[in-house]
């Protein structure tokens, strides 16, 4: 089931040809949602990674994996236009990445508010819908319409029960769901999640993975599909959901189908420690450090 780890310097490109999991694209030969060509990115003088060339097809659920400090979140910041590449081209929906692209929903890792006791869950979600607009409001019918969208997003993330409580009064897992609702309220086509499972216990990890799976395949009124990128340091809990992965190896990002990523040689090389891939009699697949 596995290929040899991609030798350094190769940059798998082109649309993925999924071997396992659902075929992601909504229609035939749809354009890639994310496209990088020869991208190089610096933080100050420090080269984070280079030679980034890959495409991500619509409907994919892609894990962004790599050791700490390898530049996983940097990829998300590039796609959001919060960071400029020092070389190469970053395209989202066929256009250069830019700030303020409302087709993108973003759930950062430090989703906790500056002062979580100062805001209710519901208000945080409402900011995702209209927080970028100047002026007071909305009023009247627009206000009711927005309240309905906020309610729908809260319901979608199973957050309705604590919507009127302050962020400081809900658990870390619940706060994570409210942040996801904030991203969903704008009905994004590209969803960027940064470490959605960090600091969650096993039960909440499983619940969150189930929620991510639902959200990644959420029905849309316009018939388009949602594409999801998930930055994670631990690929295991997400394996049932992922169709592919971008892995940051030796300073370069590579994209591959998930079946090719779950490989002992590749993962051991990636994390710099011995990793075993285990398939249980029930067919579950997971990796562990040995």
């Amino acid at each position: 089931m596995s290929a040899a780890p991609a030798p350094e310097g190769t940059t798998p490109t082109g649309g993925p040809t999924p071997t396992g999991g659902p075929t992601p694209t909504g229609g035939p030969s749809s354009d890639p949602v994310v496209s990088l060509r020869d991208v190089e990115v610096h933080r100050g003088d420090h080269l984070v990674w280079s030679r980034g060339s890959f495409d991500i097809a619509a409907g994919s659920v892609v894990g962004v994996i790599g050791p700490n400090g390898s530049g996983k979140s940097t990829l998300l910041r590039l796609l959001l236009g919060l960071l400029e590449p020092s070389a190469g081209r970053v395209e989202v929906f066929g256009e250069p990445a830019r700030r303020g692209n409302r087709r993108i929903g973003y759930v950062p890792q430090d989703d906790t508010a500056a002062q979580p006791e100062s805001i209710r869950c519901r208000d945080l979600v409402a900011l995702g819908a209209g927080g970028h607009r100047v002026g007071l409001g909305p009023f009247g019918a627009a206000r009711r319409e927005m309240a309905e969208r906020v309610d729908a997003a809260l319901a979608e993330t199973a957050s309705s029960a604590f919507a009127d409580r302050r962020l400081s009064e809900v658990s870390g897992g619940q706060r994570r769901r409210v942040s996801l609702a904030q991203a969903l309220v704008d009905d994004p086509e590209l969803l960027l999640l940064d470490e959605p499972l960090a600091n969650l216990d096993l039960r909440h990890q499983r619940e969150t993975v189930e929620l991510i799976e639902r959200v990644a395949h959420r029905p849309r009124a316009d018939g388009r599909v949602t594409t999801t990128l998930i930055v994670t340091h631990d690929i295991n809990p997400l394996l049932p959901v992922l169709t592919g992965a971008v892995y940051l190896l030796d300073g370069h990002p590579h994209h591959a189908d998930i079946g090719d990523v779950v490989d002992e040689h590749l993962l051991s090389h990636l994390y710099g420690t011995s990793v075993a891939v285990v398939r249980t009699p029930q067919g579950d697949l997971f990796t562990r450090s040995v």
Partner: protein
Amino acid sequence: MAGRVLASAASVLADIGYQPEWTTVMGSSFMRHALIAGTLVALVAGPIGYFVVVRRDSFAAHALAHIGFPGATAAVLLGAPVTAGLAVFCTAGGLAIGLLGRRTVDRETATGTILALSTALGILFASMASEGAAAVTDVLFGNLLAVTTSQLWTFSIMAAVVLVVLAVIARPLLFASIAPDVAAAKGVATGALGLVLMVLLALVTTMAVQVVGTLLLFALVVTPAAAALAVTARPAAAAGVSSAVALVSVWGGLVLSAVFNLPPSFPIVAIAFVVWVLATAWSRTGARRSTST
């Protein structure tokens, strides 16, 4: 010894005791000016204070008042209007605080350093202004009863500017304050909004210093907002309650100052403090109840 202490205490109490003619004082023109100025300041301090508390910028608010101190004393020294000196120094200080550091740690050290330099400059200017001792006391502790008609006009314009700008930027500013990463990704100019807030805070500080002084400004800008946020987390409601607490403090403080012959700053700050204590206590018990059920 004890008798002498008691005697002087009695004479102090006689000085600040009940003033039977306080209704006449309330009807005087200086009290009318004080009520109007205090109302304007309370109205703008509420929503500004809300953002200051939500953004954890209360140290910046405290520092801005002190940065105004050398501006005010320099104005006394040069014979210029105190309001102008305050406005210039507070605005420059606000921009400096906003530009110096985005990270809280950087900003706290930078703000504290600017604060110390400002206070030193203020003392220097005050020592140079030989006959300005009373004016300096007014800057430090406020003198709402000395507000002039021209100051009222200035206050009105400043309050209008603050309220209009704040109404325009309120939503993106809240977004940038609560979820800065997401707001930036959504195209909100988070850095610029932070600077605008600092300039608005400088204008509010310029006004509020003349009500409660640089040393007590915190009580009018931060304390009412903290009390409001203890009671409600709805943004518009919290900003409104914050204004209401500031209004009650100013009005109540002015009445008490007339009734008991007190400098208004003390009862204004004391009322804000009592409201804050009650609101905080109420929210604590409320939170305990909701978690235990």
